[in-house]
């Protein structure tokens, strides 16, 4: 391992979309960027992933909507949102005006709604579509698309046909399945250009004062560092199942070291979710920390580190030896 590496190329790509760096926000944890714009310039991030939007305005679930848990939290927002028209008129416009790379997350009750959302966004200035087929907060738990390979692939292929062909679509998966690799393969076959993972885990807290479930929605989605080992495992498994597909990894990322775990496991970029609630500037901080962690380990670029933990020790040594030879040649050339 090399010990000094002054600069690291942080550029990455999610399918055809080039990003200046691999750190994005997570859907539902940054609204549509505006509020975080008070703390930093949203154009400096890899991208903003917006809160999942649906066709119609939606009030979401009753309060209480959150409970703190050990190193995590539960939420049951229920996809509160203004509906696609207001979203395009206000939120999307603000993101464009402010120069942000924009990943729009869409959610629907059925395949048609997903398709209609993709159509409404066809000519809009967006960089990527994240298809949230995995939100465990929606009342019809049995119906979660990402729990069934067939339902998942049906939505993804329909959205792929309906969406602007220049806009990659990423399927967002839930970890609450018996075999996430199978789901990943089915959405890959259905035409997903990449995969976002993971969404929250289904969880629950009992309120010891009321002796009833703490959340208005009874169950909720577990997020935060508590779930990070599950998320890293999912990224690892899906990278093995569909090595050619770019992955957007997330789940409990709080620091550059956490982000590096996801990159090494196979993610091309990461989303920072719950950590933003603790530290509004977390995504910006993590860009710098990730750069330092990569430099410390002698990586020349972020893309070199993607999936690196899958390599054998010999392959890993080969990479660093190659860099060292290149450096030596460059120094020799300068003389």
């Amino acid at each position, binding site marked *: 391992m090399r010990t000094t590496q002054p600069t690291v190329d942080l550029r990455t790509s999610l399918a055809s979309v080039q990003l200046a760096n691999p750190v994005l926000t997570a859907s*539902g*944890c*940054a*609204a549509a960027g505006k*509020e*975080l714009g*008070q*703390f930093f310039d949203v154009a400096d991030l890899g991208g903003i992933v917006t*809160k999942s939007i*649906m066709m*119609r*305005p*939606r*009030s*979401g*679930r*009753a*309060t*209480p*909507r*959150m409970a*703190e848990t*050990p*190193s*995590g*939290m539960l*939420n049951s*927002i*229920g996809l*509160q*949102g*203004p*509906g696609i028209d207001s979203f395009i008129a206000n939120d999307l416009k603000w993101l464009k005006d402010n120069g942000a790379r924009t990943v729009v997350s869409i959610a629907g009750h059925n395949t048609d709604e997903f398709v209609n959302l993709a159509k409404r966004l066809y000519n809009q200035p967006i960089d990527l579509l994240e298809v949230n087929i995995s939100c465990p907060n929606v*009342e019809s738990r049995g119906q979660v698309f990402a729990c069934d390979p067939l339902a998942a692939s049906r939505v993804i292929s329909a959205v792929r046909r309906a969406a602007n062909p220049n806009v990659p679509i990423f399927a967002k998966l839930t970890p609450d399945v018996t075999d996430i690799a199978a789901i990943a393969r089915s959405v890959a076959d259905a035409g997903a250009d990449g995969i976002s993972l993971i969404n929250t885990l289904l969880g629950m807290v009992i309120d010891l004062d009321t002796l009833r479930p703490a959340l*208005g929605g009874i169950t909720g989605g577990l997020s*935060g*560092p508590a779930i990070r080992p599950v998320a890293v495992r999912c990224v690892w498994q899906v990278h093995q199942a569909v090595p050619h597909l770019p992955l957007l990894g997330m789940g409990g990322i709080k620091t550059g070291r956490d982000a590096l775990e996801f990159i090494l496991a196979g993610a091309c970029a990461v989303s920072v979710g*719950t950590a*933003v*609630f*603790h*530290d*509004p*500037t977390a995504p910006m901080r993590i860009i710098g920390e990730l750069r330092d962690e990569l430099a410390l380990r002698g990586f020349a670029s972020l893309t070199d580190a993607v999936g690196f933990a899958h390599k054998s020790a010999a392959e890993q040594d080969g990479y660093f030896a190659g860099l060292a030879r290149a450096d030596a040649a460059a120094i020799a050339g300068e003389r």
Partner: protein
Amino acid sequence: MTELATPQYKPVQETGEIFDLTRFGEYLQFTVVAPGIAEAYRPGQFVAVAVGGADTSMLLRRSFALYGVKPGGDYAGTIQFVIAAKGKGTRWLFDRRPGDSLDLVGPLGVPFPVPRNGTPAVLVGGGYGTAPLLPMAELLIAADSEVEMIIGAATADRLFGQLPAKRLLGKITVTTDDGSAGQRGWVTDPLPSAIERLGAEIVYACGPMGMLRAVGEVAKAHAIPAQVAVEESMACGIGVCMTCVLPVRGSDGVSRFVRSCVEGPVFDAGRIRWADVGSVPADLFGADGN
């Protein structure tokens, strides 16, 4: 206590040193060096404090109403807030010592609206809810308003701000549920006569939800507005997570779930649909989209 600088509106994140800690009954008053927050502050706003230190299992910040600020000058600006020990996070805060650092985000939320000069006002505080009302009282007095203040709590131990309120206003009304201080009863008992005595045109209140609702009803009965600062469970405090919503009737007559962290914590009590807090009323905007 507070001289208002030109509001800066943008919240900032800063690490502040604890300058002083003082116990009042069941409460602990923090004075923390935080010039960025102090400069932008207006009464009614709050601050979100990280708890537990590095490697804590507590992920979420805790919110506290700002009790007042001393903007920069010869010394760096400080902020004050007052806390009650409730769960794990506030217990951690009770263990802090002067000189320790706190990680703060603020000022957050919309402040109390300021009426035209000279508007007579009654301020009603329950428990630590008195804290944010004291700087508001100062501001009103500076704007030539006549001000009365009613403060209450379950017991004498849980009263806050009696002395500073008296110093500011000369005379205040105190109630406790058990009569251990002031008159026995609720803050809403002496409220009607205070409104009438003063010819008050507005009421400001901060305290438990039940109290705010009752204050709102008294104000309504007198055909004047009540501006109340609510306390909802908040995951982010900055408007990105949607956990802190309340059903609020808009000026267009439509009720929506609105974020109490950025569209509140101060609301016109008449607009909050108190009976529907904790449910999704059928006529709420978007309720049929669920």
